[in-house]
């Protein structure tokens, strides 16, 4: 069983071409990154605002908790039913999938940003203000740099979930590694399904590793080094 999965993975023909592993991996990555960026565009400013002002904390907590409970499949179908008649071409399939992934990614990013900002040492924040930093100086020079580790872990966990869930885009006919799962299921090709699953996990790990590297460069060593 394992060896036949390996055979599928090691067959060059499965890697090449429009529908091959390489192309689907790139497509998968593309959807995932677009979803992450969109989710970040929504969740980061929200998290910054809530963390910085302390206002709307209830909103943050309920969004973070509530969104997690929203079943992706249900949202996908609702979005398809609503958007299919309204959109032309590829977008009619891409947008519903994107909505699902964005909803999925918002909670971890939001709670990462919010918690990162909220957990900045109150003394550091107080000192910053007391030394004459303006609100935005406090935010960008003190709160954000200190929140980076938690922000990153929120982003990374969002990305892991996006990559795993982007497979359902294949349900509505989009590309990506989900194709191997869905097509494999449809044609009872077990090796293809298992191989696809392994590829998704591998992609998730790889992306997480890259994010980890970026984090190492971006986050101040002062936040990791201790006496």
């Amino acid at each position: 069983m394992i060896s036949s999965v390996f055979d599928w993975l090691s067959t060059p023909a499965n890697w090449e071409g429009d529908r091959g592993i390489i192309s689907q991996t790139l497509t998968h990555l593309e959807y995932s990154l677009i979803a992450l960026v969109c989710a970040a565009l929504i969740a980061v400013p929200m998290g910054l605002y809530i963390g910085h002002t302390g206002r709307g904390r209830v909103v943050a907590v309920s969004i973070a908790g509530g969104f997690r409970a929203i079943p992706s499949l249900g949202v996908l179908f609702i979005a398809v039913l609503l958007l299919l008649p309204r959109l032309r071409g590829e977008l009619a399939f891409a947008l519903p999938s994107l909505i699902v992934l964005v909803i999925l990614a918002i909670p971890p990013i939001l709670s990462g940003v919010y918690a990162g900002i909220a957990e900045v040492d109150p003394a550091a924040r107080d000192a910053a203000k007391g030394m004459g930093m303006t609100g935005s100086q406090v935010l960008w020079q003190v709160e954000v740099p200190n929140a980076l580790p938690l922000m990153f872990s929120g982003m990374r966990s969002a990305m892991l979930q996006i990559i795993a869930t982007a497979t359902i885009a294949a349900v509505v006919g989009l590309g990506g590694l989900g194709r191997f799962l869905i097509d494999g299921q449809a044609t009872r090709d077990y090796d293809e399904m298992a191989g696809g699953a392994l590829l998704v996990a591998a992609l998730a790990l790889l992306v997480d590793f890259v994010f980890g590297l970026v984090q190492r460069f971006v986050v101040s060593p002062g936040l990791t080094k201790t006496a």
Partner: protein
Amino acid sequence: MRLWGVDLGELIELTLDHIYLAGVPLIVGLLLAIPLGWLAVQRKWLYGPLLAATGLMYTIPSLALFIILPGILGTQILDPLNVLVAMTVYTIALLTRTVADALQSVPDHVKQAATAMGYSPLRRLFAVDLPLGVPVIAAGMRVAAVSNVSIVSVAALVGVSQLGILFTAGFNRNAMGPILIGVVACLILATLFDAIILSVSKALTPWQTSRSGS
């Protein structure tokens, strides 16, 4: 009684199925995560590999797991057992780190006092570390419960009966009603799970009085 094209009796049945499929793995997963988390804390060299391995399990797409498990377990594709096992895997993936964190959250002086009084490591785990780790474990359980409720619905794609069936059914009938009811039912269920875990956690930690912040 029908609501938006969904028979209420049916809805109740699907909800019960959903509770079963999401709930049982939560408990089984916790029971398995406790020894794993404990091991990770006990044996320092195991900490990294164990948490990486369990974390890796979370990156497997749920749909893939539902489809692949029959091949591994020798079950039928439609067997609810596949879903139970898959959800248990995800629960372990989330809770092993939680348990390890929880055990580490117990203050050192408390652990040392317990050891000094003669607790063996295992007895200390059940008498001291785990009870004190309840708040952290409960927090992890809440995340796991909510995400389990959501992930279980994907099992509709492999035809296992639970609330997610309302999504495929509604979709196939071009009817928004059942899908919306399914989503709302999932949300209510998640809230319910959350509330139960919260109250169990409170009941287990009477020393955690809610302090009024001033």
